[in-house]
């Protein structure tokens, strides 16, 4: 498949505006600025574009809400917090194709009549910060950003806002708090950001990859775009594969590519010909799958039917040498560390689950520990303030659901039964 999002990234100067233009970049901007904002939204609707940040929310719907709000100015925020463990799909766009994102943001800004944009960039990407700032400067210098863009009477300002190491700031309302100069703790919804977002103004938050689809949608039109991928979930998707495969890395493939094909066809199968033990298909917060459940089409609509979620498209492949109690324990350490502390079920629950998993892993597990963990997770699910807590609970539930004997053996043997 011809790449759209990762186009031209082998070119060592791909982040330069001249190279981007040479490869056809910034052609869509002229076309989009000649369209009415509503026409742009209509194309995105025809394209069937869903947000790539994890939830798969229809983009045109979110935009319609924000556009209907009479308050101005409006804000467009790009979520470049990319914190979901296993995920490294936005980084190549940010570092190698920054102008694709900027072009996408200008088009989106026009559709929303937003005058201000920010890229909320995680603190862990220092190189991307310099690359983005340089690219933004080039866009200002060529009148692609700022006032009266390309003489079309449209204003759009763009700046990078750097996060400082908090996974929860990827959640859109926490992101907004953080952009306003506060702790990144989620806000209650409603009101939704589309009505009361950053600086109390209508705000759209979209992921890096989502916004990077815009130039292509405008170039070929929504209908043509929608032919890529699956009917309910069109478009290209960047999958990022890590762990025990022969060829880990980033792969731009049509939405709906089967998980098995990603692992065995594109990534060359399990490293060293070992046996597959488990796959986390969409970043650490998504339910783990055993080897007999990987014939699932990787998109937002189909994955839930197969017992997991597409999440960020971050596939973590684990071979037979991996102790899953240990993996589950490490995952819960992460959630405990990243819990923002706002609500009790998550703040306390993640700590309890981490502690129990830790003692099982250390050979100090007790009879009944598995049921205790199931009780704790059941008490978290649906009772936390934001999806981080739900994610933590469902991670534990799914590891136990598919791999309960391994947990039981750890408790019985009073040691790690995989690595001794």
């Amino acid at each position, binding site marked *: 498949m011809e790449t759209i999002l990762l186009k031209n990234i082998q070119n060592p100067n791909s982040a330069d505006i001249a190279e981007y233009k040479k490869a056809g970049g910034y052609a869509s901007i002229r076309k989009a600025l000649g369209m009415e904002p509503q026409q742009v939204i209509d194309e995105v609707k025809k394209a069937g574009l869903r947000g790539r940040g994890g939830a798969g929310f229809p983009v045109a719907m979110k935009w319609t809400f924000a556009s209907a709000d009479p308050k101005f100015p409006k804000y467009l925020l790009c979520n470049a917090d990319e914190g979901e463990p296993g*995920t*490294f799909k936005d980084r190549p766009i940010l570092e190698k194709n920054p102008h694709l994102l900027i072009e996408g943001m200008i088009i989106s800004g026009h559709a929303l009549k937003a005058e201000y944009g920010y890229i909320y960039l995680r603190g862990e990407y*220092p190189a991307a910060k310099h690359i983005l700032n340089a690219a933004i400067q080039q866009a200002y210098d060529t009148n692609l950003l700022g006032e009266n863009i390309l003489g079309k009477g449209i204003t759009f300002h763009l*700046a990078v806002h750097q996060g400082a190491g*908090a996974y929860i700031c990827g959640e859109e309302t926490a992101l907004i708090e*953080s952009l306003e*100069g506060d702790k990144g703790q989620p806000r209650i919804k409603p009101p939704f950001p589309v009505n009361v977002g950053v600086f109390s103004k209508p705000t759209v938050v979209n992921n890096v990859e989502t916004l990077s689809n815009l130039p292509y949608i405008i170039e070929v039109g929504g209908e043509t775009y929608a032919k890529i991928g699956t009917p309910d979930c069109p478009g290209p998707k960047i999958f990022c594969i890590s762990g025990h495969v022969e060829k*880990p890395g980033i792969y731009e493939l049509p939405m709906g590519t089967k998980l098995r094909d990603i692992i065995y066809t594109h990534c060359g199968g399990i490293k060293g010909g070992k046996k597959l033990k488990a796959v986390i298909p969409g970043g650490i917060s998504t339910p783990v799958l055993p080897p007999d459940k990987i014939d699932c089409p990787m998109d937002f609509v189909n994955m839930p039917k197969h017992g997991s979620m597409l999440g960020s498209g971050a596939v973590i492949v684990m071979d037979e040498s991996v102790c899953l109690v240990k993996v589950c324990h*490490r*995952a819960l350490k992460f959630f405990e560390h990243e819990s923002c502390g706002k609500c009790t079920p998550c703040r306390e629950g993640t700590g309890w689950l981490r502690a129990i998993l830790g003692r099982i892993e250390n050979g100090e597990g007790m009879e009944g520990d598995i049921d205790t963990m199931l009780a704790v997770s059941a008490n978290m699910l649906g009772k936390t303030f934001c999806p981080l807590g739900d994610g933590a609970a469902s991670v534990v539930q799914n590891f136990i659901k598919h791999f309960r004997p391994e947990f039981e053996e750890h408790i019985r043997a009073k040691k790690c039964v995989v690595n001794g």
Partner: protein
Amino acid sequence: MFSSAAKQEIEDIRTKYPNARAALLPTIYVAQREFGWLSSEAYDAVADLLNVPKATVRGVATFYAMYKQKPMGRHLIQLCTNVSCMILGAERLVDFLKITYGVEPGGVSPDGRFSLVIMECIGACGTAPAMLVNDDFHDNLTEKKLQEILEKYT
């Protein structure tokens, strides 16, 4: 007190936002760089310049893992041990750093050369295990490669 260059930098940052409060996170970054870490003096400087109570500045800063609440070594090693890195040997690297440089997670080596912070995924999982030293990414790490890289940071 900030240097006049730092003040100018913060003034420039300030223009990107509709109010001073929104400039708080980037200003704390500048303070951290200027003062080395977020000492009481650094907090005072931020509070004065943005006219935000010191307690608020401290409350915000302590929420974020990348703001440093104590003095750091000359070089900051940020090593990821999350799942993709862990299953490819990141824990051995943590042990190696302890044995070779005497630095433990959250600590500073006795000679003040390295600080070590354990990270929660730095977006380099496809080339795991990975770390940042100061602002530079290093990946596909082995004990040998780790040592070769660190020898360049004196």
